[in-house]
């Protein structure tokens, strides 16, 4: 049994079958990549995992508990954090505040009436956030407005916001899209470090095969709303079906 079990999940948008009969099992403490052409339903699948969408059919369980019917904040509190395909950050807040919020969410749960505390005096939390920003090499930008960051920095910030929660399962939707080569490599190194330093499961959607093959221990290939094959990276590389559905296209 994996930490994340997706069974027979289907989702239709009007007449469009975005997902049909998706089965996926992600083993604890592995990096599991999901690849596939545009419109394959990869993001839709993640949406079904974090409570953004409710699948029409099937079940999703995380660590033995169903996530269906739970609100996004409850699913996050179970230990699932997600990096979105287009960065979702607090653009009107500073970089530091962006990271402080998940720190408070982790310490205080989904609601706490802390109206008479002062953010600056919560030294543990501030240290935690600063350490995280240092890890993603953004400490010098901590007073900047998040809206003024470059695209790559916005992604790194969002990743920092997720990582600082120390989630059990981290979902990454194209974390390096729009990043410069050097930043992509930094991101790979960061994720490797995180992976080595503590128990964490990652599910990563990525078009950049360099990233996929640097990180993934298992790969699922999706096309047209269903998983085609699931295997180790080495086997996937040579798989004829995969070449046909995806890799051929990506290498053009």
């Amino acid at each position, binding site marked *: 049994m994996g930490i994340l079990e997706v069974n027979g999940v289907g989702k239709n948008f009007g007449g469009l079958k975005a997902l049909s009969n998706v089965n996926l099992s992600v083993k604890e403490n592995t990096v599991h990549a999901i690849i596939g052409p545009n419109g394959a339903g990869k993001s839709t699948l993640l949406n079904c995992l974090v409570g953004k969408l409710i699948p029409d059919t099937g079940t999703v369980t995380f660590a033995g508990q169903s996530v269906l019917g739970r609100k996004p904040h409850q699913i*996050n509190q179970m230990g699932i954090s997600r990096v979105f395909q287009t960065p979702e950050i607090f653009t009107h807040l500073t970089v530091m505040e962006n990271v402080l919020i998940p720190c408070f969410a*982790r310490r205080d749960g989904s609601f706490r009436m802390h109206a008479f505390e002062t953010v600056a005096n919560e030294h543990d939390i501030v240290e935690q956030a600063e350490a995280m920003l240092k890890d993603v090499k953004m400490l010098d930008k901590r007073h900047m407005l998040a809206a003024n960051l470059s695209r790559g920095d916005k992604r790194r910030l969002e990743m920092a916001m997720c990582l600082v929660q120390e989630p059990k399962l981290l979902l990454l939707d194209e974390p390096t899209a729009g990043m410069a080569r050097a930043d992509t490599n930094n991101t790979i190194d960061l994720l490797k470090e995180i992976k080595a330093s503590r128990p964490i499961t990652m599910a990563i959607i990525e078009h950049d095969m360099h990233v996929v093959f640097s990180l993934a221990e298992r790969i699922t290939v999706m096309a047209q709303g269903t998983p085609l094959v699931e295997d180790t990276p080495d086997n996937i590389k040579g798989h004829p079906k995969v070449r046909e559905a995806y890799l051929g296209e990506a290498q053009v």
Partner: protein
Amino acid sequence: MFGLDRKDTVFMLIVVVIALSAPILLNPWPAASQMAQFNAGYPDLMQRFVVYGIFAIGFNILFGLTGYLSFGHAAFLGVGSYAAVWMFKLLSMNIIPAILLSMVVAGLFALVIGYVSLRRSGIYFSILTLAFAQMSFNMAYSVLTPLTNGETGLQLALDDPRILDAANTTNSLPVTNLFGAEMRSSVTWNVGGWSFDFSVGYYVCAVIMLIAFYTSVRIFRSPFGMMLRAVKSNQQRLNYTGINSRPYTLAAFVISGMYAGLAGGLLAAMDPLAGAERMQWTASGEVVLMTILGGAGTLIGPFLGAGFIKYCENIFSKINDQILHQWFALLPDWLENTLVTVLHPFIGKGWHLTLGLIFMLVVVFLPGGLVEGWNRITGLFRRKPKAKPSATTEPAE
């Protein structure tokens, strides 16, 4: 100090000094001079400044931080006034129980309205709050007449029980007081040509306003306040970060409702009667104007906006053609007459036009309100900051 950092402490102290010396600061012109009509340092107007300041500071906790624009906040003000007058009728003319009850009642009322309205956001939220407020206004006029005394408004009567007060042996209505100190009593200080009024009512309101303002500063700097700003910035991200935004917005709504109730209670404490018109949608719109004009999301902006609007309302509306003729008396007749004709629509009853124009100018050129204007002016005189990335979000004073 008091849980504030140095910058906020200094800022708070400045506000304290200004509030306490307002009777002097707002009366810069000698009483006999031409300009005396621009003096705002009389108790009635100063009380309005601080009471509506409290209203706007509270409104800003909801609108400025979370971005939820309520068009029904006057309902809480009105409810607060009714609650306070009932306290004066039943319990005591001491204002403490009255304003406590007005906060509690307005808070409960806000809990109910907020619980329903916050199920929607954006324009739907605004419409829901507007609908609730209009409903309360109409009910106060009609079916709730036993509680509100309908169109006449709720007033004191000689035969009210007032169980805590000594029996009223005089034949006049009792006056509101704070442990015996009458709200309307004041000391006048004449120096040179100036005349300054220090009234109990103003100082009571000012101290309460300072407490309310301090509370709002603490909320702004707290994790709670940060969550509220996060709601405004990206509610979806907040939810996916494990925060349930609903109780946060509801708490902000109730807190701002209690501020409104407090303001309503203080209005009644200054003048113990309450009418339904206090709940009308124009009154709800006014606090929106105050907040935006001063600078939504800033600490002091809403208070400045409230002061500005109340000043215009009371001072501009008093200027008439005769006064204009006096001002321009030195000019040639034709110029004098032209000027008076041109300015006529903007003064007296036309002060709304002046206010509207100012409001439009501020929104177009200073989206951050008067506070942004102030920051730009001081920015001109400050040395260019070093090339360090600085935050503009910091809700500066």
